[in-house]
């Protein structure tokens, strides 16, 4: 076990995967020599050479398109999109190609690749360095979508993603790269070294894609969360004195429906939180699933607390971000008799 930031854990996952399997190749913008603008691939080129980890031209379509071809050849590319906000030029290759290749060729060709992207706001990045586009992936059959919230999960899930035979979208909320940020942007930063989930096993381990994690047990209500919002929900619960059960979904597709249903049937109340814009966000799917499976257990309407339906504003990002106050208010609302 070593205390690691999420960045170090991600880098370590790369190291372990590349060490074990020569077919793993890593590339993207500024990923090689420099080691990535967030340093998640730092040192890989030095360690494995420039045929295993290299820089690319600034072309997200090229990065993913080439990765699909490489995966079809038999390699296992793990590529970085510098910010999730820049995945759109690659969207055709992701949706029409990576996601569908196995199906359309009936397994003749496959595309086992991982596309990593930093997501979410909280760094004053404005509308093009803050987005959380997970719902644009969860609607696409053939993709698996993972969102990580802590170093322990990040390493185990990234190794699992690289070893997975399907294309995996791997989303990294950048605001938790360096600590379990709980939304209190005006308070001092807590580092991962002070958090149990910052303790990361050495060497190889995986976390099953498709399994949620009960982040906090509770009986008052269920919070369905992922990424940064896991920590925000925890802060809100503690501040409101509400005994919330917080489920860190970890994987959105395939979804751990059992974990969700089990918890909501127990608590009878459900709060869904995410940073992405509300309309047609993944919270809608969660809400729909919960009411389909637990309607008669519900004591109150499921509440969604999400980013507003606007671009992510630079100066007003803390008014946009669904912080502990908004989440806490929703908890109180849910608990009203």
């Amino acid at each position, binding site marked *: 076990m070593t205390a690691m930031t999420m960045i170090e854990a991600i880098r370590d996952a790369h190291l372990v995967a590349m060490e074990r399997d020569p077919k793993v190749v890593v590339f993207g913008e500024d990923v090689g020599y420099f080691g990535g603008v967030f340093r998640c691939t730092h040192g890989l080129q030095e360690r494995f050479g420039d045929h295993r980890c290299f820089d690319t031209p600034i072309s997200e379509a090229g990065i993913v398109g080439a990765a699909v071809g490489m995966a*079809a050849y038999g390699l296992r590319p793990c590529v970085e999109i510098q910010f999730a906000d820049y995945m759109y*030029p690659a969207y055709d290759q992701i949706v029409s190609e990576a996601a569908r290749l196995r199906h359309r060729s009936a397994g003749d*060709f496959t595309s086992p690749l991982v596309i990593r992207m930093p997501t979410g706001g909280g760094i004053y990045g404005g509308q093009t360095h803050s987005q959380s586009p997970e719902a644009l992936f969860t609607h696409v059959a053939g993709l698996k979508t993972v969102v990580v919230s802590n170093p322990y999960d990040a390493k185990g899930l990234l190794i699992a993603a690289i070893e997975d035979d399907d294309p995996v979208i791997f989303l990294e909320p950048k605001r938790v790269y360096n600590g379990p940020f709980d939304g209190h942007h005006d308070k001092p930063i807590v580092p991962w070294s002070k958090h149990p989930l910052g303790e990361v096993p050495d060497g190889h381990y995986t976390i099953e894609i498709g399994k949620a994690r009960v982040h906090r047990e509770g009986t008052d209500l269920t919070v369905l969360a992922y990424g940064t919002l896991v920590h925000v929900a925890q802060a809100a619960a503690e501040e409101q004195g509400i005994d919330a059960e917080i489920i860190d979904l970890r994987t959105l597709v395939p979804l751990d429906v059992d974990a969700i249903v089990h918890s909501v049937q127990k608590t009878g109340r459900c709060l869904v939180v995410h940073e992405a814009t509300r309309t047609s966000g993944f919270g809608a799917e969660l809400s729909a699933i919960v009411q389909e499976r637990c309607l008669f257990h519900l004591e109150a309407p499921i509440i969604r607390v999400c980013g507003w339906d606007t671009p992510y504003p630079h100066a007003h990002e803390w008014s946009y971000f669904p912080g502990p106050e908004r989440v806490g208010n929703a908890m109180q609302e849910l608990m009203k008799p």
Partner: protein
Amino acid sequence: MTRDNDKTATPLRLQIPHPARGQHPPDQVRFISRAGEMPKPALDEKVERIALMRKQLVRVLDDDGQAVGPWVPDITTEEKLQGLRNMMLVRSFDARLLRAHRQGKISFYMQSLGEEAIACAQQRALRPGDMHFPTYRQSGLLISAGYPLVTMMNQVLSNELDPLHGRQLPVLYSAKSHGFFSISGNLATQYIQAVGWAMASALSGGTEIASAWIGEGATAESDFHAALVFASTYQAPVILNIVNNHWAISTPEDFARGASATFADRGYGFSIPALRVDGNDYLAVYAASQWAAERARTNLGPTLIEWITLRVGAHSTSDDPSVYRPPNEAESFPLGDPVERLRQHLEFIGEWDEDRHQTLQSEIDTQVAEAFAEAESHGSVKTGDVGSARTMFDDVYAELPRHLLEQRDMLGDSA
């Protein structure tokens, strides 16, 4: 809308291409060389010098059917006869399936009439292990690779034996075993994938090269650019084919080409050597493909080839070209017909005659008819013999996740 603050300024105007269309006779082929005229550059010739040849056309077969000039490929008569047979097979196959469409037996079809030489000859010029990333007009690659006709037809019929389980539109084949990448319905995506595949081969110290295919119309798509950038930067071992058949559905090549002289010109700005080749000349196709493959195999990087040909038929069975095509376009096409030209050559060298041709033709037609009869015996999407709908849930992922299991169960109840 004029916000002119200088009343003497020229009003701007846009140039909307007005190519030959409708009733106008087409300006079909720009810059035709005589057979044998264009020199053959060294494999590592400078891109500038190759670019100077951009208005020339690699041609081997002259009007008499004689093979002339530096590009004459060193291939046996058997190989040529094989090429003739393959092209005729493609043509006969297409004809049979078009008839099947008219008979209401299949839902859709796209033929390669007039373009057969390109895929057929390139397939023979490459090696097993190489991977083609085709579009929907390269069925010649499969046929020349000896892929079973019946299996192709099963795919087109979407019947119970369709290896793609009826998932794909007819002709969107996939055959890894035969060096044929799964065809996408989305144009141009395969171009950068081919570059990626070639990069993977080189990253792994392999020896297999990739061949990317695209229509001239689809070169306007963005993935074409991604492919050229990556191929240039990493010097990937890939052949970048552009099949210029002069049409993109109803739109003449001019819209994608813009003001440039040729599509081969696109290579220059990436320092990718580019050739224009007579795509209806089997021997020229063979030679140019060999040249490009050799460049790739010796780590000299990518080659772009613009193949000049004509889409003789409709875009697809959903298309009505009478609205936009000039009459007699194929008849007046200056590069003739690929089958006829190779046949003429074989006759010229004394290896072929009318009798043998007729015999071969009926042999092929029989082969195709028998294959079709067999394929049809397994039914089709029209007869409802399409295998189980439950297979639709397979291969979405390597393993069926829970939500798809549930959905398959729901289907079971209602289907």
